[in-house]
């Protein structure tokens, strides 16, 4: 017979202290694409030419990267290392300024709930990896129950809606109905670059990014976003930490 309790005690505490204390991912992990200072027009053009989701816009020797379109394949940095590089900075969540008031309301409400919030997830058309990474935030390394974050089966009990994947035609109505069933105030997180922008998907085959169908408060780039990125995004959604405003990075 297995003694799980003894086994659990032997393995010690695995859980990160993040977001209360900093944490880091492998230096090699490709989270955020950056433009190398002093990049030449030729290098920028070379990188932009291999971007399958058109995340890079080049204007001569200036370029912008739309993080929401990036699916982190790393090809730009591979073919043009003089122009593009990646950092392992996993805090990728972005918000629009105008959701500040909604987050304030949720912050006040969650304070009244003893800081616990319930999350409902909807898969709108993901590649399956966003689900496994979302599941991973409950594993012992991240254990977001310690932060008062729980999944709920019913949208009527949910404070936060996490939508993954580009929205397919068949998922438009289910997504809308879940959103409408949730009590106000509610926060919507579009999880993953495909949910935020549709990345590589062609407009005639899918319905579009999540924000076309329900109002989105927090956009989380990544294909898929790492568990630490998701924990950060939830912290942003709950108004506990500021996010970067949405828009391209220079």
């Amino acid at each position, binding site marked *: 017979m297995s003694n799980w309790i003894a086994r659990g005690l032997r393995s010690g505490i695995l859980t990160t202290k993040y977001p209360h204390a900093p944490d880091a991912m*492998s230096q*090699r*992990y490709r989270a955020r694409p950056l433009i190398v200072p002093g990049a030449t027009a030729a290098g920028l053009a070379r990188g932009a030419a291999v971007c399958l989701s058109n995340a890079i816009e080049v204007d001569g020797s200036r370029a912008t990267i739309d993080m929401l379109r990036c699916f982190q394949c790393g090809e730009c940095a591979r073919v043009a290392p003089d122009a593009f590089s990646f950092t392992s900075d996993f805090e990728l969540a972005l918000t629009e300024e105008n959701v500040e008031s909604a987050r304030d309301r949720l912050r006040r409400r969650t304070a009244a709930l003893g800081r616990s919030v319930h999350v409902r997830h909807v898969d709108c058309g993901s590649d399956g990896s966003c*689900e496994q990474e979302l599941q991973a935030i409950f594993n*012992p*390394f991240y254990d977001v129950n310690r932060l008062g974050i729980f999944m709920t089966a019913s949208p009527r009990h949910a404070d936060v809606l996490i939508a993954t994947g580009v929205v397919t035609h068949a998922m438009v109505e*289910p997504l809308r109905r879940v959103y409408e069933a949730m009590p106000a105030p509610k926060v919507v997180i579009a999880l993953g670059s495909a949910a935020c922008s549709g990345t590589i998907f062609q407009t005639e085959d899918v319905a579009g990014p999540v924000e076309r169908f329900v109002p989105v408060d927090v956009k989380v780039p990544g294909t898929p976003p790492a568990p630490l990125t998701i924990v950060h995004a939830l912290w942003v959604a709950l108004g506990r930490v500021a996010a970067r405003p949405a828009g391209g990075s220079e």
Partner: protein
Amino acid sequence: MIAGTTAFEAAQSAARQVSGGARFVWLFCDVVGEERRLHYVTELGGKLSFSSGVVPPSLQASSIAAAVPAARWYEQEALSRFGVAFNGVADHPPIIKSPELDAEKLRRALGDEVSTVLYGPIRSGVVESACWIIETAGEDFVAVHPSMFFKHRGLEKRFEGTALELAPFVAEHVSGVTPSSHATAFCCAVEAARDIEVPPRARAARTLLIELERVHQHLDSLAKLADDGSLSVGSAQTFAAKERVHRFLADATGHRFGRGSICVGGTRSDVLATLQSAAERSLDLVERETFAVLDGLFGTQSLLDRLIGTGRLTKPIVHAYGGVGPVARGSGILNDVRVTDGWIHAPAAPETDGDAMARARVREAEIRQSFELIRRALDAPDGPHRAERLNARARGSAYARVEAPQGELLYFVRYEDALARVAVRPASFANWPLFVPSLPGNIFTDFSFIEHSFGLVQSETDR
């Protein structure tokens, strides 16, 4: 393949192969100019046979689903995506998502005792979207009709016209949890069409990435089974072991699922070198923790009792529906592409009872076998990580297959200057039809055990 063959002759030829003991593998449609062409694939003794033929302008084709049940889903897909009408196929309940589920028809067919429950497409927990129409009388399953393809994203079409250098990224979107299996299968098809010789070092790197996928996906299945059995600590520890595999991959490849590593002709960078250095740092730990949870899970009788006898599939049923991977091996059908490819001598199949227990045992044995393959692949010789010549050719087509964690995965690639048609036969697509006969005789609370013992990916099914 004989030019001028009709789709009818191709179908009859495939049906003959199956009646002679072959396994039905695949049927898909390709549009060349004005012509719709049906391709049938069967397998006998590890060897694939192909027959293809042209659909007449009436778009009428003959269904072989009555004799070959495994053909049914493919025929329905060809109908809904390419308008090819198979006589007789409309009598089966639809599997492709339609806006209105025909509840009225179901209700008429059922007596007062049986009620119909819609389960999905949004279900509790963090799961991919799919729907089951469950007919039940109390707590027993009477019948279950899958309604899938909510997540259809037009990915086969997305390949068309995409540059060969970037097309493996599209393959990685078909299943985000097994991207290296998909990218490898796609690249192998292109390499077969162009006679590209992949260097041994690149082949070793691909093997490593696919075996690591097998480890984390099998751990995912086992962790979910432990959770279904209310074994909270065991589930948490199994998910922790899975997390260690993802951290290993992030450290070695820059991505937690190993994406962006594989390209036509080999690997994009010398990923074997970074896998080797990551292995020196942490592979022992990953392996030790994985084996520890396997010992724990299979030493916990309260969990095993829930798996034994649950969701049983007999060998003839698995053969009839064309099952692959751990689902087939759990029922004694020992197909494994890796044997044909010479990666392994024999598939790991310690139990062949066909129940959830057998499938879990197959996963356990495969995880242990994967670590052996990983160790062996780490010893790969020095040398180039990519073929020097990519043999540009104006046109060609080829098949390739890979043993993905869910089972045999096939790609068909046809190009004319650019990619003209890419067809994918995911292991999950081949296995979902078996979910239907695995449920009757079980009760409601068995559903998640059976589902997780199958361990399938919805996104690759829907594509």
